[in-house]
């Protein structure tokens, strides 16, 4: 079973040289720490930056320089600042190659819910609805089951939706799965030490298992 860093490390292998990538809050932010040697990418922050760098050294924090999670950051050489309309303009125009974000639920046809639990929790959608409506490739980083032990990979989402038919791939502590255009989660890889049966038991939506399922390489 993977921890949060393990999930981020596996997703980092999906990040290819030359990509513009938007990382959501939480596990997706950790992906930046594991991008492979020789893979040069530009990280987009939807509050208005291309070229996110590492966290600053203590004492170098600048309140005018934050990421979309409101964390203090730095820039890398070649970075650019812009306003929020331009930021979502480049997202809407499909210029961002890959979006990695968290989710509360994903359905077997690629619907995603991640912004609201009616009556309990309302944080807002932030930029998630814009990102999932326009990104060419969307990978979800999340736990396979929720705190109550219920599957988050469902036939249909029960929570208010963020976007329709948009998730392409999911990486959880148990597995890597593709979401097929015709519907269904196709199991691609198992986390180290996890059996196909454990993944099957944790998946409520339609799970497609073809042939031997390899253990993931980290």
């Amino acid at each position: 079973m993977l921890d949060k860093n393990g999930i981020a490390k596996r997703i980092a292998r999906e990040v290819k040289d030359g990509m513009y990538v938007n990382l959501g809050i939480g596990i997706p932010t950790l992906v930046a720490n594991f991008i492979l040697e020789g893979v040069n990418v530009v990280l987009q922050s939807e509050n208005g930056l291309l070229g996110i760098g590492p966290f600053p050294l203590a004492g170098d924090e600048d309140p005018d320089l934050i990421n979309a999670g409101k964390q203090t950051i730095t820039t890398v050489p070649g970075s650019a600042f812009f306003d929020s309309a331009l930021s979502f303009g480049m997202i809407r125009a499909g210029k961002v190659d890959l979006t990695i974000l968290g989710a509360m639920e994903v359905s077997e046809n690629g619907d995603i819910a991640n912004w609201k639990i009616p009556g309990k929790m309302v944080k807002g959608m932030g930029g998630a609805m814009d990102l999932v409506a326009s990104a060419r490739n969307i990978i979800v980083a999340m736990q396979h089951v929720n705190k109550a032990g219920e599957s988050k990979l469902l036939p249909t989402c029960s929570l208010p939706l963020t976007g329709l038919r948009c998730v392409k791939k999911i990486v959880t502590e148990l597995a890597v799965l593709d979401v097929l255009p015709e519907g269904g989660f196709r199991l691609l890889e198992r986390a180290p030490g996890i059996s196909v049966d454990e993944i099957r038991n944790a998946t409520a939506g339609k799970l497609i298992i073809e042939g031997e399922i390899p253990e993931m390489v980290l």
Partner: protein
Amino acid sequence: MNKVIASADEAIRGIEDNAVLGLGGFGLCGIPENSIDALIRKGVKGLTCISNNAGVDDFGIGLMLQTRQVRKMISSYVGENAEFERQLLSGELLVDLIPQGTLATRLMAAGYGMPAIYTPAGVGTEVAEGKEVRNFNGKDYLLEHAFDIDYSIVKAWKGDTQGNLIFRMTSRNFNPLIAMAGKITIAEVEELVPAGELDPDHIHLPGIYVSRIFKGSNYQKRIEQRTVRTA
């Protein structure tokens, strides 16, 4: 032409109860601290505030929530503010949550003189309820209307006496868009210089969008999430 005003209290003159305000900033980054303090001193109530976030419990717009001056918030993300969430869930505060890009583009539309825009954000979600859906080239889009803002209040790094503005790093965020969308726009700046001192090639927002400008003071510039690495 000289748009310079002496103080925040003078800059917000004319803002009455039930006004529709736009406020710049993302989280606590680039928020008009001096003007928010002046609004609290003035005590105007029943405000509608269009702002990406609502500050935190004890800073930014969060301060105006504590004083119950806000009747309605139009925002994209309100996490990290317990009082906001409490007022929302109890029904004391009206809240429109809208996608961040939709928020930005509805402001841009107002500043560009366009009545509405089409965006795919929110199609098939509760955001789409009651909205026109139109298909272009095989993809569905929602019709979203430009904002109608009485007073826009923004924070810039540098400004000149003509109202030209330059922002610093990610504190630009929603500020130029909010500024463009107001019938009357108030800009507070860290550094105010005479016309001619800013390079025209470096202006982020031309002064035509700014009605009043003043030099702010005592900026706290709070950091919401202080994250550092070890050397």
